[in-house]
């Protein structure tokens, strides 16, 4: 298991180098002079020269890449063109908001998706199975930003039950400890902030959870059906165990392994999907920041945030693989 984890970890080194190459090349995809594209046509030649120097554009290409990687390794992801703030500092400050949203979404997806998949598999080809299949397919077919808008309109504007933007009500104050608002509310024993942050979290989290929920439900169904056709399940049934015990104690243990993998994959995708959800709900995380930076042509932020999310995506996938190997001893690296 330890050897597998180390070998698997080593495989991500070339992948990370490849990611850095692609993200590095982003700045060279900009048509014309990137510095002029960022500053606009009316920028003074002096300011253009400054930005070119800041981006390292006056060096040969390979030197530019080496400087770029050197900076990354020192934790320098560049600085915002508009404000001059270091990208990494703002990323770290905004990351908790995105993680809070993504984790809540995945929690909802698991809590609804797995039971839905189990029921669909147990009563396969029933009306529930058909409906759950249609719901799952509709879930993956729905643009999440559209669902977010509909939820915000219905629950926020028509019913006025839930807030439609931001992380906390304007009338609530919360001392920032970790920047995870739910955790901070608990740490500072602030029930008012806890209630407000939970209320603000519901709509964006539900909107973001639809695709992983659909994927998890379908995977649970398919995987459970495969396990249920195996001999050891027949043995368990022959022993006289009732269906609930067979499914929950015997079948689910094995059926959940592939579910765990797709869930891991979805966590990474949620970080990217958050760009759309955060834009709708003015959720001050990395997604909204990327959107605003694209509008403002602040390319170092787009570049830095893309590198950051892609690295997290690779790490989450690695973690999922290693966890998979930990729970399933048959997995070996070859």
């Amino acid at each position, binding site marked *: 298991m330890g050897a597998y984890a180390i070998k698997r970890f080593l495989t991500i080194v070339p992948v990370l180098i490849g990611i850095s190459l692609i993200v590095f090349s982003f700045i060279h995809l900009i048509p014309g002079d990137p510095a002029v594209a960022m500053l606009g046509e009316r920028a003074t030649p002096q300011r253009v020269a400054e930005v070119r120097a800041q981006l390292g554009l006056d060096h040969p290409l390979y030197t530019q890449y080496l400087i770029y990687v050197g900076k990354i390794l020192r934790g320098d992801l560049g600085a915002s063109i508009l404000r001059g703030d270091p990208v990494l500092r703002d990323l770290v400050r905004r990351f908790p908001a995105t993680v809070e949203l993504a984790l809540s979404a995945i929690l909802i997806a698991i809590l609804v998706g797995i039971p839905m998949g189990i029921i669909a598999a147990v009563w396969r080809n029933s009306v529930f199975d058909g409906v759950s299949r249609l719901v799952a397919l509709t879930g993956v077919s729905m643009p999440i930003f559209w669902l977010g808008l509909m939820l915000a309109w219905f629950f926020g504007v028509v019913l006025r039950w839930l807030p439609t933007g931001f992380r906390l009500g304007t009338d609530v104050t919360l001392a920032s400890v970790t920047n995870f608002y739910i955790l901070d509310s608990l740490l500072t024993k602030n029930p008012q902030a806890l209630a407000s942050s939970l209320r603000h979290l519901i709509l964006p989290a539900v909107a973001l959870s639809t695709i992983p929920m659909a994927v998890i439900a379908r995977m649970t169904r398919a995987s459970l059906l495969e396990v249920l056709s195996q001999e050891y399940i027949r043995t368990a049934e022959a022993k006289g165990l009732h269906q609930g015990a067979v499914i929950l104690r015997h079948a689910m243990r094995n059926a959940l392994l592939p579910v765990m993998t797709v869930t891991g994959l979805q966590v990474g995708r949620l970080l990217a999907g958050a760009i759309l959800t955060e834009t709708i709900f003015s959720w001050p995380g990395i997604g909204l920041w990327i959107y605003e930076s694209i509008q403002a042509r602040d390319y170092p932020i787009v570049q830095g945030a893309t590198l950051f999310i892609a690295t997290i*995506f690779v790490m989450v996938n690695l973690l999922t693989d290693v966890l998979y190997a930990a729970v399933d001893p048959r997995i070996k690296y070859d």
Partner: protein
Amino acid sequence: MHRLLANRVARGGLAIIALFTLMAVLSPVFLPYNPTVDADLLARLKPPTWTHPFGTDALGRDILMRILHGARVSLGLGVGSVVLAALVGSFLGLLAGYVGHRTDLCLMFCMDILLAFPATLLAIAIVAMIGPGLRNSLIAISVVSIPFYARITRGEVLALKEREFVTAARGLGGSARRILLWHIFPNTLPPLTVQTTLAVAFAILEAAALGFLGLGAQPPIPEWGAMLADSYKFFTSGAWWAFFFPGAAIMLSVLGFNLVGDALRDALDPRLRT
């Protein structure tokens, strides 16, 4: 095909695709529309009526008309990017699988790097850099879809090139190009069909997302994602029709391709029939 048509779900999906294809093809013929002279500021954000069945948007434009004409743009973008990705991806897959060795290693490493990014994020970042617009979003969506085709085709080629009919063709003196194009490539098509149907669904969603972020079709081109972007700021004023109908069009068309893709997968892979 017969098995596919016997499936009720697939028939529903095919009907949806047919409906949207007809919309895309017939709207420009029977309902000429010029998006540049369409604004009617006196009729801004009017709810659905007989004259405007889907209501009007913030510039007083008829939403139904824009959805009908948007079908050509949104479906065109979805299908176009998939065709481009399928051509480039399967060519790379054929090359990697057949030539093997370093070519295979090199190409698949590049594909793995592209797969290491969340697809939506990569597409957004590419368009953010090369500039917004229909052509650039088509390129970005294609780039993120290429690795799937390359991987599937390569896998198929690796399995097929050991088969007897390929050995026979080689024994008869067939050139590598002939064997690839006439013997191997046609046999990689069934799994690619499933991938293509599902990829169109994904591409329409991606195109809508890019349009929504202001990176796809530029105003006043009627594109469903961009229509949502134009109208979403008005949701607090209760103008639900301005965003409901364009979003429903995206969802229905994507659902159509997903239903057919799902049924095709079941029909082509008997192991999955549960």
